[in-house]
Structures are given as C-alpha cells and as structure tokens.
C-alpha cells in the first residue's frame, strides 16, 4: 500500500471572512475507503471540492500519487485530475439517457458500447441503458452516477453525502452495495458525510472535521472508543459526561468508582457511553427514570441522578423500565477521561 496516495498539506480556504478549511493535513492510502465526517458547515465539502479541483486553496498543497494538483504556483483543472465525483443529487445529465451518461467520461478510443454495457452490468442495471434519468429511482440514479464516474477510469473517487438523498428504507442496503462495488473495483474512495453511522460502517478510516480542522482521524473503532476530545465524543455516539477525580486508573464520581482508560491523572471530565451504563433495582435507589424511547433492537432511558444530572442509558430490548420508576445506575464499562473544563 502506498501511504500518502492523496496528500494534503496545510490546505486552507476562506470565503470572505469565513475560514472554511483551516490548515488541513490529510493522507489517504491507495485503495482505501476514507470518510470525512463532521457536522454541517464544518468545511468537509469544501475540502472535497479542493481535492476535486472545483476550488483553489488559498494556502497549502494537494498531491495525488506524487503529482502536485494544487499549490501556490500550480493548479490542475478538474478535467485533468482524473478524480471522479459522485454528487449528493447524483447530477446525472437530464437530457441524456443512462447509456449516454455513462459513456460521457469514457476515454477516447474505448469500445464505447461494450464498456457501457460492462459498467451497467457491474452496477447491476444491465437493462436500463435507454432510460432517461427522471425515469429512475433514487437508488438506480446513484448506481448510474457510480457507473458514470467509474467509466472515466479515475484514480480517486469522491462521494459527497452520497446516501442522504435516498429513502431511509433502502439506504442501508444501498450503502452495503456501494461498499462492495468500491472494494471490487479496488478504487480509492473518499466520502463526505454528517452521518456517523454511515462513516463508521462504511469507511476503513475516518477523519472527524470540526470548524475547518481535522480534529481526529483513525479507524472507526478508535474514533468511537477513544474520541480525542469532548466535542468529538458528543458528535459521535451517545455519551454522558460527569465530573470526577482520577487516581491510578480509577475515577471517583457520583456513580461510584469507575475504571478509566489509561494515561490520565487528576481532576477530569469523565465520558461514559450510554451502553456502558445499566440500571439496577437494589435498595437505596436514588435515581428516577424520566423517559424511555423504545427502538426495538434496544431502548434509551433517560435517568435523573440523585444530583439532578440527566443520564442516557441504553438498555437491551427485553428490559422493562417505566417512567417514574426508582432505580440505581451502574457503570458496566470503562470511562474515558478528558481534562475538566
């Protein structure tokens, strides 16, 4: 594997007074599926557009496979980058049928008919060559957009919120299909999303962006289990935060003594995931269930502790909890400690 296949160094972009992308360093390996995750307006789409060549950086360099795409003196236009983009709205050409859409980016001299048929076969739409884009469902449009992007034989594929325009009922299935397809082709892919579940389930590596900066990047599990700071922990998953004091790997807080991930001593803000808490019904129950949302595969209880703090507790589907019930809150897993604010 080639470690910095795509390499961004110190990339910045401002629009007027707003700094959209602020000194970002980013490395993506060849063949990797990479996610840029962050809340709306964090600059992730701008970063994608900088890589695609639709914006020029104010500072920093973008390189692909050792070739400079953008720097202070150089700027390679999008059509010369061999970086394909799949847009949120798929952006199929409405005046061309599916076959012509796919054929648009085929290199000169290719056996067009055969390549279009192959690509449509690859995305599982072999019979739709003559259809117009408006006659397709959202999922079909997306697969045509993927086939069209692959036709140009790009070295890198960028996907901008690729699943947000799909019906939630089919989103999960389409997601899995797209992942399989990208892996089968072996292309390097970067996608942008604000949906943590999407990023964690689809990508091999995730970068979390906030306020124009990349605050953490790594494997999905490390992002979830070892968030770099409180904002990341809040953005990804359901987390509870409590003040506490850490001594030798054990934190003391209002829920008692809790094991803490290594490497922190002193006054801390403890993060405990909702699934690491459990409810008990022993004596001296000083907390109260104030709300329960039942999801089927599990449920989320909101509990008011003795000190009045609201805690989120994820319960297995079979556990019975009802509003107003007196309970105790127990810590089942490890906490993560951040310096207290």
């Amino acid at each position, binding site marked *: 594997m080639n470690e910095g296949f795509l390499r961004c160094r110190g990339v910045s972009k401002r*629009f*007027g007074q*707003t700094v*959209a992308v602020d000194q970002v360093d980013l490395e993506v390996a060849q063949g990797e599926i990479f996610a840029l995750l962050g809340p*709306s*307006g964090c*600059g992730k*789409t*701008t970063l994608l557009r900088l890589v*695609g*060549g*639709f*914006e*020029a950086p104010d500072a920093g360099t973008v390189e692909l496979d050792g070739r400079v795409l953008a720097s202070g003196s150089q700027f390679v*236009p*999008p*059509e*010369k*980058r*061999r*970086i*394909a*983009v799949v*847009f*949120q*709205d798929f*952006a*199929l*050409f*409405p*005046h061309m049928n599916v076959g012509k859409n796919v054929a*648009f*980016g085929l*290199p000169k001299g290719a056996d067009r008919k055969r390549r279009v048929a192959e690509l449509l076969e690859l995305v599982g739409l072999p019979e739709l060559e003559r259809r117009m884009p408006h006659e397709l469902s959202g999922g079909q449009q997306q697969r045509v*957009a993927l086939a*069209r*992007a692959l*036709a*140009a034989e*790009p070295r890198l594929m*960028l996907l901008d*919120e690729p699943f947000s325009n799909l019906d939630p009922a089919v989103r999960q299935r389409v997601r899995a299909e797209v992942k399989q397809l990208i892996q089968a082709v072996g292309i390097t892919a970067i996608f942008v999303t*604000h949906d943590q579940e999407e990023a964690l389930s689809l990508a091999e590596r995730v970068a979390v962006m906030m306020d124009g900066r990349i605050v953490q990047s790594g494997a999905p599990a490390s992002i979830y289990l070892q968030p770099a700071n409180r904002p990341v922990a809040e953005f990804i998953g359901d987390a509870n935060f409590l003040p506490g004091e850490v001594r030798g790997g054990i934190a003391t807080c209002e829920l008692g003594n809790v094991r803490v991930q290594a490497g922190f001593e002193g006054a801390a803000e403890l993060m405990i995931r909702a699934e690491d808490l459990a409810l008990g019904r022993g004596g001296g129950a000083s907390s109260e269930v104030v709300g329960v949302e039942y999801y089927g595969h599990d449920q989320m209880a909101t509990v008011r502790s003795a000190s009045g703090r609201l805690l989120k507790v994820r319960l297995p589907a079979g556990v019975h909890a009802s509003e107003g019930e007196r309970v105790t809150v127990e810590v089942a897993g490890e906490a993560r400690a951040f310096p207290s604010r």
Partner: protein
Amino acid sequence: MAVMARARGHARRLPWATAVLATAVTALVLLPPVYLVGRAVSAGSGIEEALTDSSAVQALGRTLLLTASVTGTCVALAVPLAWITARTDVPLARVWTVLLMLPLAIPSFVGGFVMISAFGPGGMAQDLLEPLGVERLPSIYGFSGAWLVLSLLSYPYVYLQASAALGRMDGTIEEASRSLGKGGWTTFVHVHLPQLRPAVAAGALLTALYVLSEFGAVSMLRYDTLTPLIYIEYTTGFDRTTAAVLGLPLIALAALLVTVDGVTRGAARYHTRSGAGRQRRVPLGRWRWPAFALCAVVALLGAGVPVGVILYWLVRGLQSGADSGFVVEALLNSARAAGLAAVVAALGALPIALLSVRHRGWFSGLLEKLSYTGQALPAITIALALVFFTANYATRFYQTLGVLVVAYAVRFLPEALGATRAALLQVNPNGEEAARSLGAGPVRTFLRVTAPQMAPGVSAGMLLVFLSAVKELPITLLLSPIGFETLATDIWSSTSEAFFTRAALPSLILLALSGLAVLLLLRRERLS
C-alpha cells in the same frame, strides 16, 4: 453545508473570456446614451439654445403631462380591475383576466391607426354616421386622443403586476382582517392596498417608461411631445445636433424614473408565503353587475374596438380589390431584421447570464444591471445615437441592416437576458462539475451539458425578442436601409397618408404576432 453552498457562487475565479465578452456587450448597450450625451454636450452653446427653444419647452411639458396623466389613469383603472378579477365573484372572472391583458399585444402605432381610421376625418365613424346626418365629429387629435389611446394600451402593465401580486397574497391575512370585524371594502383598503404598493409601483414605472418612449401614436395623433419633435428635427432640421440635444431630457427622465423606483423599492419589502393560505373571493352583492360592466367596457375599448376597426378596413380593402402583394415583402423584411436581432440578442445575453448566474458578485451584478439600460431608454434615442455614431465613425455601416439589427438587440437584450438567466438557473451546476471531473474541459462541458439544457428557454427568449422587434417603429424608421419597408413602416406611412385599407392587413399580422408574444410572457410569468 448551507454556508458553503452560499459561498460557492463567489468563490470560483472569474472566467476571463466570458467576463471580457460580457463587458463588451454591456459597453455596446451603454454606447447609445453615452455617445448621445457626449455629442449633445460637445455642442456647447447650441445645447442651451435648443433646449430653451419654445417648441422644445412645450414638447417637454407635453411629455411630462402625458406621462403623468396616462400613468395615473392606468393605476386608477388597473388596480380596481385587478382586484375585481382576482379577488371577487364577478361573473366570467377568468375570461376578463385574459381579455384585459390583450391590449399589450397592440403596438402603439396600430392603436394610433385604429383611433384615426375609426374616428378621424374620412374614418369609419364618419362613413357610418354621415348617412344619418352627422357631419362633424369631435377632434381626436391632440392631448385627449393621445391620452385615451395610450391609457387603453398601457394599463395592462399595472394590471398584470397588480393581479399577480393579489394572487400571491396570503389569504390568511385577509381572513384575519375579516375575523377582526372588517368588511370587504375596509379589508381591501387597509390590507390589500398597502401590500399592493410595490407591484403597482413596478407597473406604473413600466407604464411611465412606455409613455416616455412612445412615438407612433403621439405622432399620428399630432400631439408633439419630445419624441415626435426629435423625429421632425432629425428628418427636416438643418443641424442634427438639435435632435441629439432633445434626446437629453428623455434620457434624464428615464434615468430619474428608474432611480426613484430603485430607491423606493428598497424600502418596501412584503413577505408573502409560498403556498399562501386559501383565498376566498369576495361576494360583491349588488355591485356584481356594475363590476361586470366595467370589465366589459374596458375589454371592449382596449381589445374589441381595435380588432373590429382593423377587420372593417380589411373587408373594405378586399371589396375594393386593393393590392396586398406589398405585405409579403414587408413581412419578409420584418422577419429578417427581427430574426437576426433575436440571434444577436441571445448571443449577447449569454456571457452576461453565465457570469451573473454562475459567478455572482459585484462585478457580474453591475454588468447585469447596466445591460437592462436598453429597456429603460426611449427607443428613439437609441436609434438617434446609432445614426450619428455610424455616420461619423463607421460610415461603412451607415444605414445598413447590420445597424438596425444591433439597435433592436440593444433595445431588447433584457428580454433575451431574462429568458437565458431563467434557463441557466434550471441547470444543475453539479452536472457541470461532474462533467469536468469526467475529463471534459469548460468548452466541451458547456456545449454538451449546459447548452442542450438551456436551449428551450433561450429559444423562448429569442422568440420574444423577435416579436418585440417586429413591432418596433422608431428604431425601424430611423435606421432601416433605404427602401427597406417593414410591416411597421408600412402601417406608419399608410396611416399618415390616410390610406386605411392598406394599413389593415399588416396591422392584423402584427396583432397576431404580438398576441403570441403576450401568451408567451403570461406562460413564463406563471412558470416563474
């Protein structure tokens, strides 16, 4: 994401080739007023002499009087009509909505022709009434005739704006007013009228600019405002500089109107929800039939009488076996000049539209605003400026079809620009970026992705320019090559010679063509 999307238009670099083309087109649009002003100012002391000449002062006074009285009449007539047809239970409301719009399709010189040929000496009324012993009709020449014709032809500008605004208005506000115990009339005065102000102001501005620019009807009806005076000075005067100088007050008045409108419009913004609450039609009670009669009378005068008079002369001409072969040549000439103008205007509009839609910013915004100059300028000043300019600096083009086409294009560029902008706004910019990422350069992207999607809208804009140019009179009169007769110039010369049967057929053709333009405009209004 929303933040980024907003920022996007500003962010991308200005494409230089497009910017240069757009600037060139805008410069061409600005050439007539700038040149005319320059030429007039360089006349030195002649300028004062020409402007203080008693006929010039009188003409300016008449222009102001006519503009003010017609605009006032139009507002007074159109606002009640709009309310009646849009918000009350008047019988046949939908029929009136269409019929009341029809005068838009009647070029002013056709209106003048209708007036003279119906009520003038040797006209239809005299023909019909003479056997009954009526020997003299009240004169239609002068202020009253011009005022009547122009009011009946231009009230639809206000009517269109006002009824569109009434249609957009939030019905729940009205219901709130009614629920607070206000009756239908009080609601109209206190709720509708204030909300209508911006729309009525916009309509009144269009009307006033129309009257300022008006040449055909006032000339035919011998009410010498500035435009006929300019034409007379131009055709008969020894020194053409006088004509140029007389153009100055016209340009100044147009600029003043547009500025006043811009300033006042900024102050008043009214919020209307899209998908506004359900609107209920107000029951008129015993006023139902008087309202019906008002609609009927205006529709009859504005649309029925012109069509009837034209048909009368057409039949008279057919009976007397007059030759109508000349119409074919006139039609072909009109079509050629207007067709070329449509192409030139569409090409000129393209770079400005591309810049203003895809690269929003102060520069593209300025170019877009300036390119609307032709619409506000009185047509005769554009024609005059180009006559002088070609006579002095481009003699090869003097009195050629090319200059005529350019003048049309300058005048009607805004129509092409509006349509092109609307078409471009419909094209998904992501599609263009997708094409770039698939290896297509900017030119190929435009030709294969953007242009095919814009084509229907741009053609509609071209059709509008074509139809407007066909019925343009003063530009055609001043700039046509010698011996180049069009439908408009034929009607003009036939009417001045009281040769009414000869003017009938070209008038009818023009009416049909501009009726088509009105239908197109209405459809676009509804779509947007």
